[in-house]
């Protein structure tokens, strides 16, 4: 599998350097958000806000009023918990073209509760006028600036940083779902880092004759209900959502809303943080601890299909390698 180093650093610089109306805003997290190179090379387009997120939000609203499209960089959690009031009054209500780049989604950081954005999608989705996107691989990170900047209003982007796997070959497109595998037994929706985990599970499951339809979701608002509806209607044994977020207010709730709205009698298992805060630890450890990994997905599938696979972690590691070679095929579906 190709691992891309700091995909956002280059993508943002390439996108923003020549655009007059784009400014780079940072709350003392330049290198953590991979914009330190941009800061050094384009200081006239960079505004340091220090550790003062409330001011940063209203200030960015003011920049919007002056005709700019600020790209606001921080850890996701700092862009909504402390400055929620400012986010609403200065960004969301007036539909400022602010592009909020929130890093460290969910359990991707050992920083613990204070650093883990676990309700960001839920909070941002409930705000009128806000668009919500989430990146799941390096290609999506590389293409998100252009997508975000095309939106007529504010947008929150859940960003991956550092070493990011490349799973997809085509850029992120707003409102589009990616079909990664076909299968009639189980329908699996994943977003963010959970997509890679589901790919690992998928190959191992194939040996047991369980075919899953795997859908990757990168637009969490607005939702194209018709696309979801046609998929959900065809799922035979049930649906699983898997997200690096609380199970309330995110992907699982999106699916659940559609199921109830259209009166579809299908069972849904929502994998994610089950109404709990997380603690600090490695991504691998936390994924296992909070049932957010491939094994957790397999257990849920066993539950829905009433089968027992006995798949172990060791089987999954092999599966991962196999799957790398089939990625392009999956994408070509």
């Amino acid at each position: 599998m190709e691992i891309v180093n700091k995909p956002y650093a280059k993508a943002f610089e390439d996108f923003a350097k020549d655009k007059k109306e784009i400014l780079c805003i940072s709350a003392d997290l330049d290198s953590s958000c991979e914009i330190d190179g941009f800061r050094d090379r384009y200081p006239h387009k960079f505004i340091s806000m220090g550790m003062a997120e409330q001011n940063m939000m209203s200030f960015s609203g003011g920049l919007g009023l002056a005709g700019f499209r600020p790209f606001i960089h921080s850890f996701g959690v700092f862009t909504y918990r402390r400055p929620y009031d400012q986010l609403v009054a200065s960004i969301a209500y007036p539909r400022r073209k602010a592009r909020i780049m929130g890093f460290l989604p969910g359990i991707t950081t050992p920083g613990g509760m204070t650093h883990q954005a676990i309700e960001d999608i839920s909070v941002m989705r409930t705000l009128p006028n806000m668009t919500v996107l989430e990146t799941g691989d390096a290609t999506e990170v590389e293409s998100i600036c252009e997508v975000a900047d095309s939106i007529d209003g504010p947008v929150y982007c859940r960003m991956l940083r550092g070493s990011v796997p490349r799973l997809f070959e085509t850029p992120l497109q707003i409102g589009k779902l990616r079909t990664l595998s076909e299968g009639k037994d189980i329908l699996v929706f994943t977003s963010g880092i959970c997509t890679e985990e589901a790919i690992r599970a998928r190959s191992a499951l194939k040996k047991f004759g369980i075919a899953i339809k795997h859908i990757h979701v990168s637009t969490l608002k607005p939702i194209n209900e018709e696309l979801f509806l046609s998929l959900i209607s065809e799922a035979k044994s049930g649906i699983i959502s898997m997200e690096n977020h609380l199970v309330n207010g995110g992907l699982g709730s999106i699916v659940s809303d559609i199921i109830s709205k259209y009166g579809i009698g299908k069972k849904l298992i929502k994998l994610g943080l089950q109404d709990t805060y997380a603690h600090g630890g490695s991504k691998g450890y936390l994924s296992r601890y909070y049932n957010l990994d491939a094994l957790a997905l397999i257990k849920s599938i066993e539950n829905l299909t009433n089968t027992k696979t006995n798949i172990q972690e060791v089987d999954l590691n092999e599966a991962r390698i196999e799957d790398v070679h089939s990625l392009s095929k999956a994408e070509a579906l």
Partner: protein
Amino acid sequence: MKNKKTNHEVAKGIRKRVFEHCIKNNGGYLSQACSAAEQLAWLYNDILNLGDSTQPMIPEEFSGVPSKDNQNYITGAGYNGPFESSYDRLIIAPAHYALVAYATLIEVGRMAPEALDMFNKDGSSVEMIGAEHSPGMEVHNGTLGVGLSTGAGLAMGRKIKKETGEVCVFMSDGELQEGQVWEALQTCVHHKIDNLWAIVDVNEQQVNGAMKDVMDIGDIANKIESFGAIVTEIDGHNFDELSKAKKINHKDKPLIILAKTSPYQGMKYLKTRFPKLHYVRFKSEEERMNMNNEISTELGISPIEY
């Protein structure tokens, strides 16, 4: 339309209109008219470089909040003139002063007197707490403390675009209790945002009563100065002092004018309500009648019929 009236006449007109409105409606933001009448009169009638209003004299009705389905949404900014690079912008940070601001727009000929009848009426854009779509309002400031940050961002943006118009933020001293204001100040100083200036109505009042009893903020001039801004303290009812303050050189720094005011200036009888002055609702018909008689005499008008 500039200077058809003197600043004194505009300030007097503001007090009269707000007083009349409060008597008729059995209450309102009366003390804010007392403390801020001169400041708002001076801003609109004298010191700000504003273009002619782009909006109708009778404000349009409320036509929906901003959304992708409401592309024709307009803010109240047009009452302060068009968004052109040479004109100043005015951010009224404490949106609770809306009634006083509306009265000012009327006095300087930017809005019809009838607009005040639309105040706080269902379906009207002339809202009680100035909304983004209310006349003279450019953004939502009902949540106190966001105004200076917004003004700072707007000013920095204008600087980058080399626009000559300045940004003025009208503030109240109560909102200095919010930490965000100090975040904004440090940002203005750090980034040398000197096309921004603010005037603070220092009337020492807040909802619960006198600020020194609710949450004393101490020596604000000293605090602001130590943040690195240029600060001056003046009599907020004195036009000469206001104009002198604006002339202070503040190159590379924001200018903060602390306008010391009285919350019953021009309506001495209001002192009977101290320290509950934030929103004056008459406790009895007798109080309403006494207020009407005493204050109308001081304003030199006949008692208001209601």
